[in-house]
């Protein structure tokens, strides 16, 4: 294993320390349990946005803490969901009295830990909602799986909901907005190489010199299928068509019922894309793929969207939700309305994304 690290055990801690040294104007950290949060939090009367998950997806989530995006991030060990006490600590550090929205990627571990954290926080009088992101169309069958994984749409949801918090939306309205972003976003990813989890020290999987893994998640886990390498255009078309042609996807999720003080089941359905839709297109590097290659993917993606009558109104191209040093890319398409678009464009200042200020 070759990495710029000291000891595998110190990776998460030292990386946070470096972030704080570099971005002390924006960020503070709490250690054990680890929380990265806005230097100016808590923000009185403003809904706090918390996300978290395993580390190794940098800049997500710590790099998205700042004005117009997350209020706090709870970074777990590499590829391992953070713990409930950690999420609770995050909620306590940033709650400004208007409650906390947890944006939760749909992985068994993240869901269970965030649910326990929400139970604890609500019992301590902090109003907390969890909204799931489950946008990975590579997961076909939600009856026989833990449902679709949460991937690229997470970044877009964190941005749009963070802007809404900045504008003073209340907790229920932000939760609703987050759900809307989630059901209107779809993603798919692929890998050319594996990544290496520092504590493990060797690649999670081996790919031959002419093989690729398609339909991967973001944890170096094997994907939907392994196949022969194809050209960037073919790969882009494969992923884009799976996303664009994905039908209405329904599933039952658990959301916190503040009246009943318990979880309730909610059925939600992703509406399929249709000609005339306006999109944010997000082409993401898994970490080791250079941005020059992402633009080659974006080029083909733009052509395909055009052919389907889909209008890309904004785009994001770069490494934003990664799997350590894995080579590969993912595509996320999010159908937006005027409200989402205005929120997307509003001022943003985080270590990883910045505009309008």
């Amino acid at each position: 294993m070759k990495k710029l690290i000291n000891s595998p055990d110190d990776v998460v801690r030292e990386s946070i320390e470096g972030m704080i040294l570099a971005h002390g104007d924006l960020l503070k950290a709490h250690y054990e349990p680890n929380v990265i949060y806005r230097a100016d939090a808590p923000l009185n009367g403003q809904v706090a946005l918390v996300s978290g998950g395993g580390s190794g997806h940098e800049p997500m989530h710590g790099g998205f803490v700042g004005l117009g995006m997350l209020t706090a991030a709870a970074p777990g060990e590499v590829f391992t969901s953070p713990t409930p006490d950690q999420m609770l600590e995050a909620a306590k550090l940033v709650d400004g009295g208007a409650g906390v929205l947890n944006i939760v990627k749909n992985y068994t571990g993240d869901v269970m830990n965030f649910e326990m954290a929400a139970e604890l926080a609500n019992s301590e009088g902090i109003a907390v909602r969890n909204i799931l992101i489950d946008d990975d169309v590579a997961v076909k069958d939600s009856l026989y799986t833990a449902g679709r994984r949460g991937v690229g749409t997470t970044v877009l949801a964190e941005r749009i909901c963070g802007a809404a918090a900045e504008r003073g939306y209340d907790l229920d309205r932000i939760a609703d907005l987050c759900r809307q972003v989630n059901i209107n976003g779809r993603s798919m990813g692929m890998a050319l190489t594996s990544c290496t989890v520092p504590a493990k020290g060797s690649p999670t999987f081996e790919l031959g010199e002419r093989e690729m893994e398609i339909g991967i998640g973001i944890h170096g886990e094997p994907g939907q299928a392994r196949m022969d390498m194809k050209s960037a255009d073919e790969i882009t078309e494969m992923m884009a068509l799976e996303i664009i042609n994905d039908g209405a996807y329904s599933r039952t999720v658990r959301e916190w019922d503040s009246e009943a003080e318990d979880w309730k089941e909610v059925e939600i359905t992703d509406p399929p894309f249709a000609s005339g839709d306006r999109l944010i297109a997000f082409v993401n590097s898994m970490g080791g793929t250079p941005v020059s290659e992402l633009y080659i993917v974006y080029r083909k993606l733009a052509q395909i969207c055009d052919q389907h009558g889909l209008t890309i109104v904004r785009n994001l191209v770069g490494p934003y939700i990664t799997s350590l040093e894995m080579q590969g890319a993912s595509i996320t398409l999010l159908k937006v309305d005027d409200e989402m678009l205005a929120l997307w464009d509003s001022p943003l200042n985080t270590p990883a994304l910045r505009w309008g200020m």
Partner: protein
Amino acid sequence: MVTQSQVLAWLDRYADLIAEQREYLTELDAAIGDADHGINMNRGFQKVKSQLPTMADKDIGSILKNTGMALLSSVGGASGPLYGTLFMRAGMKVDKKQALTADDLLALLQGGLEGVIQRGKSQVGDKTMIDAFQPAVEGYEAATHAGKSVVEALTEAADAAEAGRDATLPLIARKGRASYLGERSKDHLDPGATSLAMLIRTLAESAAEG
């Protein structure tokens, strides 16, 4: 009877076994998950082990609940809440006890099992730790009903857990990260079932060593 010091010995022994099997469990998880199960479990049980000295004069219920809290706050991932809940619920069933009868042990195991099922919503055949855990609890119950000693019953429980673990090999996962693999999750042992089987085996061994 299983004494308070046997319970401490069990946790200690399991922590050592997990440390030893860390790579193996991680390799199992690399095949159908994200290559961290051994790392996660080891992080949690090293924390548990480091706290054992402070538990020397605590009752069994407290020891188990403390173990659950330690796991909850250090493991993360899927196994953190699951093993955390297992120990917390198990501890709640044997509050204040300094020693456990055969029935106490059954309550403890059943409480843990129910907790994991509630938390994870999985059932036998989903290719999870339940595949090892439920046969273990059922095996223990059957053996005590048949009049076997606690040590014998725990040994049968461990055998059943290992059989359950082995039975995960051909299964298609329906829960957790491995479920994303569909057909490709076949022909691999479930990492959580494997660590769970080790948990029951070390319990049986610790009870036997007295």
